[in-house]
């Protein structure tokens, strides 16, 4: 029986929106909420240790922000995890590990050009996930 909701969070507006939706879903099912900040560092051209540490500090800061938003909701079990791996793969792996009900991400407000160049996480996620994926747009007029 699936339980748990995995949400990708990077501090962007759409990620904040995704977080709120994920909270709703988790609360509705009485699931655990897993907030993940996933990042991948380019291994080319040198050692990564300090750079990795700097990015992880940022990840922890963002996750602490996310927790401060979420933990206003009492009774919800929440876990926040930084993951050093390409975001889409990281979320899928985490969801598998937790046997999550679904994965929630923001649209990340990606511009079409950036998405084309980099590939967008939601797009990749839809391709590689065999669990339901919920993509949440940022608030505001469209």
């Amino acid at each position, binding site marked *: 029986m699936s339980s748990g909701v995995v949400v990708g969070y990077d501090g962007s507006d759409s990620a904040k929106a995704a977080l709120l939706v994920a909270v709703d879903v988790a609360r509705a099912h009485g699931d655990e909420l897993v907030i993940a900040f996933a990042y991948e560092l380019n291994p*080319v*051209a*040198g*050692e990564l240790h*300090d750079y990795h540490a700097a990015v992880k*500090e940022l990840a*922890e800061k963002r996750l602490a922000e996310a927790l401060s938003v979420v933990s206003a909701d009492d009774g919800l079990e*929440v876990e926040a995890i*930084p993951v050093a791996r390409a975001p889409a793969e*990281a979320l899928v792996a985490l969801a598998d590990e937790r046997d999550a009900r679904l994965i929630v991400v923001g649209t990340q407000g990606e511009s079409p050009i950036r998405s084309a160049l980099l590939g967008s996480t939601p797009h990749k996620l839809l391709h590689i996930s065999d669990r339901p994926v919920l993509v949440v747009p940022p608030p505001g007029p469209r």
Partner: protein
Amino acid sequence: MESATLAKPTGRIEVEDKGLKKNAITFVSNVVIGVASTAPAYSLAATLGFVAAVNGLGVHSPAVMLVAFFPMAFIAAAYYWMNRADPDCGTTFAWVTRSMGPWLGWQGGWAIVVADVLVMPSLASVAGNYTFQLFGNSTPSNLDVTIVGIAWIIIMTAICYIGIELSARTQQFLLGMEFVTLVIFAVVALIKVYVNHPKHSIQPQASWFNPFGVSSLSALDGGILLAVFVYWGWDSGVSVNEETENSSTAPGRAAIVSTFVLVAIYLLVTTAAEAYGGIASLVNNQNDVLAPLGKGVLGSPLDKLLIIAVLTSASASTQTTILPTARTTLSMARWRALPKQFGTVHPRFLSPGFSTLWMGTVSTLVYVLLSATSPKNLIPDAFTSLALTIAFYYGFTGLACIVYYRRHLFTSVKNFVYIGLMPFIGFAVLMFVLVKAVVDYSKPHAGYAKPFLGIGSPVAIALLMIILGVIWMIVQRISMPAFFKRRPEVVDPGIVAASPAGRAE
């Protein structure tokens, strides 16, 4: 995995990263990263002409490529051991600081920055030139090349800033293309030399590879100093291999394989280029030796392949120029050796944002400065002085390894050879080359440009950069004194015990 409970009762952050990424990088990727980090096509295009032009070197360019490999391989051993003890992206900065104190360490970090800044004008002008070659204009004006070159720097900086990462597969594809093109070029050139005997061609001889055949020591020395550049960047491949693999044997093997692949391609292409065009062709086209040869060897339109190979190589080599510089300054900022802006990570792109933009801006300014004053002379001279800087920081990385591990050098023969002797030979050779080069290049007419205060232009450029570094270091000493009170340390004995050489006892 430890979990820290935050003040909020319902939430917790896991402190350690999830170790989800196991064996994500394969053996082939490791080799590819190692080879790609040196950008072989660009390195050859930019260096070969200068090597061939060294007075008294004659036909012995391949011998120089061969000889230069050894000190670099020995320094790579130092990288391997230092990285094992302290996988820090400040590399030379962090390691020299740890082993020999903050003052020398700071200068080591500065040397990395200077080397990367000084290579950018050459990189940009090669990229600019080859862009025009690609579209059939073989004699672009200096202004045009400069404008396109600046565009390249901006694009490259932007790529590093927004963190576009070529996937391992894309990299394998690009490198494969580059590699196949170089091999085709070399093989076709050699076949034509033996079959068609084109004008100026000379048949390769065994003596080309014999370093003892070089007429004078200063010729060999000058050649090696330049050839050091073609192997520059390979060390980062070695360290990355170490970091990304969990197995204790595969990473070393990947590093060794990438080394031999590199030496082989350099020897092959150097020999072929020299055989096909003769020395004169290399000397007369110093800024881009491959494009003019490509026309004769491959003919139109296949010669475009070679141009594309150099262009992709030049753009790939930004990853070995901008990325490590940004990581070095980021590391220095985290050690409180530079202002803290250098340590910031872009909130969205997760790149070392400020460091990357700083590097791009400084490179552009230096390029414009050199190009506006004397592009034909100062860019090659900056390139020569860059080799001085590389020799300095590679050499001191070797020394740092010996000093850091000094209590363990005599505990086993393996330790002595791999941690002591090899880095020491690397250090000694590079220091010899450096000192000799400083003596030679400081002569008033050593550079292409006019001497500055009676000092040859390449050494004058290096001196100027050292003075700038010392000034900045003093400013840092006054504004952020804590870093400069660090004491040198030695390696944690546990790391030595856990290493293969330590275990071999």
